[in-house]
């Protein structure tokens, strides 16, 4: 009975899912109510998580862990899930995807992510992963009478099922060669001579790289981002990244730490490839969702660079990077949700032309967000990159640092292109101005946080400084 307390947030969410599903079945046209209840239950779950004690607890035969990392990451997941739902409700309504399943499936995938974040055992991890992935497949194809959305869902399903297969194969190899599925026992039994297990590690890394869309396993990202409804894209770009990065951190630094020299090169390669491809491919894009897809690939490259260092400072920089990335992307997608004329949503970048004339405040916020995504000081995005490169240079990986910083210059180009369209080009018709308050709050919050981060940069660092793995 004692252990139940520790998984209270997860339990609460599962009960909420069942209850909301039932409610939706019995009450007709209850999307609004269910959406509201979902948002409320997310807030309640955050409260439950923050209420958890600060000690490290392992439960269920040490297969489930609650520590600083998991608490922080779960809070991030739920918080941004909350903001995504808040900012996308207008879009959902006007695109006729306001079915009761929508918020419930979002909640289910969130539950899967929470299990992933806390997993301390290969099997528990896989269960969480599948719960998350299956829900995401459905979400991607949620606009089912739309060709692109169905295509996106199918593509996402096929490629990610393949990735899950690879991951599972890797897990089985690791189990076979180390004799356990528990992270700590694996870490004890694992050494450089254990070739079979190292083989397994490579498979696991490939599977995880698929999930965070690191190059060369990124092919699905642009298509899925473009095809899925924007509300789902914004969810994809934000929330699952948290869980995937956490799992990456957990795998690399708990069970695989002993063979650090084996996997470091792989991560460095993934990181460099993602940074370069993310920067170069985004240049020619005309669809803003595709642009955001490539931008997120590039950003994941930087996050991986922090992981490749093998130090605690590296993990901290990755977590800071992730947090700031989420804030920036929230704002960027809020702007994309505002690109609406007569209830039709536009995705072409050219539609933003001359935005500064008709919507000065929205243009200013977008400007701040884009400069921050490009990593120009004194905005938050600069600090994110700054910490990453601090830890990379501390580990004396100068090649990675130089390539990383040069790619920021290349990627600055395509962000500048969007800014050019917003500020330098001739104005088009203005967009609709009837945003709901959730959208407004998301945008204002995001741009204010980005703008004022430099005044108190130590708040975020202090919060995560307690996160220590191993």
């Amino acid at each position: 009975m004692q252990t139940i307390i520790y998984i209270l947030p997860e339990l609460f969410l599962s009960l909420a899912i069942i209850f909301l599903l039932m409610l939706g079945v019995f009450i007709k046209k209850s999307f609004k109510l269910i959406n509201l209840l979902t948002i409320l239950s997310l807030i309640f779950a955050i409260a439950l998580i923050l209420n958890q004690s600060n000690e490290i607890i392992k439960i269920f035969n040490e297969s489930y862990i609650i520590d600083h990392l998991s608490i922080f990451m779960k809070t991030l997941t739920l918080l941004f899930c909350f903001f995504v739902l808040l900012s996308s409700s207008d879009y959902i309504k006007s695109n006729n995807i306001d079915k009761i399943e929508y918020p419930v499936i979002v909640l289910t995938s969130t539950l899967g992510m929470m299990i992933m974040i806390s997993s301390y055992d290969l099997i528990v991890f896989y269960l969480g992963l599948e719960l998350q992935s299956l829900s995401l497949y459905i979400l991607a194809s949620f606009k089912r009478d739309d060709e692109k959305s169905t295509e996106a869902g199918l593509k996402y399903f096929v490629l990610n099922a393949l990735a899950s297969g690879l991951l599972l194969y890797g897990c089985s190899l690791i189990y076979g060669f180390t004799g356990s599925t528990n992270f700590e026992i694996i870490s004890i039994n694992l050494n450089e001579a254990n070739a079979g297990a190292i083989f397994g590690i490579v498979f696991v890394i490939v599977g995880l790289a698929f999930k965070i869309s690191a190059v060369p396993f990124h092919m699905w990202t642009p298509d899925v981002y473009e095809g899925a409804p924007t509300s789902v894209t914004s969810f994809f770009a934000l929330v699952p990244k948290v869980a995937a990065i956490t799992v990456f951190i957990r795998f690399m630094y708990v069970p695989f730490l002993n063979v650090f020299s084996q996997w470091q090169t792989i991560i460095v390669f993934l990181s460099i490839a993602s940074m370069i491809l993310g920067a170069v491919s985004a240049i020619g894009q005309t669809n803003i969702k595709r642009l955001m897809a490539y931008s997120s690939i590039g950003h994941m490259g930087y996050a991986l660079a922090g992981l490749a260092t093998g130090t605690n400072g590296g993990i901290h920089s990755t977590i800071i990077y992730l947090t700031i990335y989420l804030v920036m992307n929230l704002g960027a997608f809020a702007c994309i949700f505002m690109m609406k004329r007569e209830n039709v949503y536009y995705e072409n970048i050219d539609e933003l032309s001359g935005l500064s004339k008709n919507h000065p405040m929205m243009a200013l916020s977008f400007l701040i967000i884009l400069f921050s995504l490009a990593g120009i000081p004194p905005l938050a995005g600069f600090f994110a990159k700054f910490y990453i490169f601090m830890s990379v240079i501390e580990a004396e990986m100068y090649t990675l640092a130089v390539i990383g910083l040069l790619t920021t210059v290349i990627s600055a180009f395509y962000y500048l292109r969007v800014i050019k369209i917003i500020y330098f080009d001739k104005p088009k018709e203005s967009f609709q101005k009837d945003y709901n308050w959730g959208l407004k709050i998301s945008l204002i919050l995001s741009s204010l946080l980005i703008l004022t981060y430099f005044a108190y940069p130590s708040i975020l660092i202090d919060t995560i400084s307690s996160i220590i793995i191993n």
Partner: protein
Amino acid sequence: MNFPILSAIILIPLIGALFILANRGEQKTVIKSSKYVAIFSSSANFFLAMVLWYYFDKSTSEFQFVEEKNWIEGFINFQLGVDGISILFILLTTFIAPICIFSGSQSIRFKVKEFFIAILVMETLMLGVFCSLDLVIFYLFFEGGLIPMFLIIGIWGGPKRVYSAFKFFLFTLLGSVLMLIAIISIYWIAGTTDIIKLLDIRIPQEYQYLLWLAFFSSFAVKLPMWPFHTWLPDAHVEAPTAGSVILAAILLKMAGYGFIRFSLGMFPLASDYFTPLIFALSVIAIIYTSLVALMQEDMKKLIAYSSVAHMGFVTIGIFSLTKQGLEGSIIQMLSHGLISAALFLCVGVVYDRLHSRMISSYGGLVNVMPKYAVVFMIFTLAALGLPGTSGFVGEFLVLVGVFQVNIFVAVTASLGIILAAAYMLWLYKRVIFGKIASSEIKEMKDLNIIEIYIFTSLVFLIIFFGVYPDPLFNTIDISINNLIDDYKTNLNFYLTTESN
């Protein structure tokens, strides 16, 4: 004095910008009140900078008015302070900013409110560069300046503004990211990014060369040195007048300031080693860009190329490492700040009236705009370094300084002065004298009252510092002495340990 005067100087323009941002209502009244807020906050800032200069203790080389705030726990302190070198740049910045706002209020026709915000934010960031006593803070302000400048060129610029804005942004960003790597490396080598402490720490010689090159890449692009100067003519030509003024008068000076503060202060061994490189690039810049300037058809481009040549004098002065050379290069930077600002404003005045920058479309202006002809004459003579103007003081001292170190460089550089006389006087002749080129020129009005105020203040300063530069020397003297002493002792230390 306990009043945090440096923070106040940095923040006042920003507060002004926030006021303007919050300003809403009818278009006309908004523009008017924005103008007053911008003028008031930038002038108040200039006044405050004068107060700072008044209280500045000229008898010590220590950093003064130091403010410290814990910024990132145990890692970076938000530290501000000025010494004899940086205070003059603060004065220059606060003096130029109101001029830009006056000029903008004359010539900017759309998005006026946003223009004032951009200029004020720019002022804050530039002042931050000269006040900061921490490498990371310095970088923050140094790079942050790209954002408003990109917008100033891109929104209010000429026909090729997009290309120029991109070129400006990407060139400078590329140079600066290498400096960021160097800054982070310094943190891991020396354990701090505090500039005061770093000036006392001797950075191991195996790192010096690479770190120096990384800083050089940033400053050489910003200054700009030949062959990294190609962004400058584009940016100057397309930027609105106020943008060109900021660019020429202050932005380029940040790089010269960086060379003095960081390259000389932290890497004496590498500075010594690379001096021939700097001399070679600077001499090429002086001769080559002067020749290029001779052939320009576009007035702004001509002045832009002449800026590159003038900045060549600055770098040879700095790396001559003599007292005269260093003091001369600082005076040269200040006087070039005033003169180039004045020249760009002169171009702006006729551009506003005729909407052409081509030299060929002008001629005979002396008949219709006599007042303009007079001030333009003074600035032309100042730009070619006529004795009695501040341009002479700087160039003369630089040449005296370099002459002690390298006669060849000094002789070749003085050719640049002759070339400067050639292109400036030829420009003046073609624009002001001769026949009246077209009927539109006959319609042109002479300077209005605001323009007369702006130009008189510039003329006054240029001639005042040309005749009596003593206040400037008083301020920088001790800091420069101290800088050279430190440099020499550190260099000796490195050289003796190397030979052992």
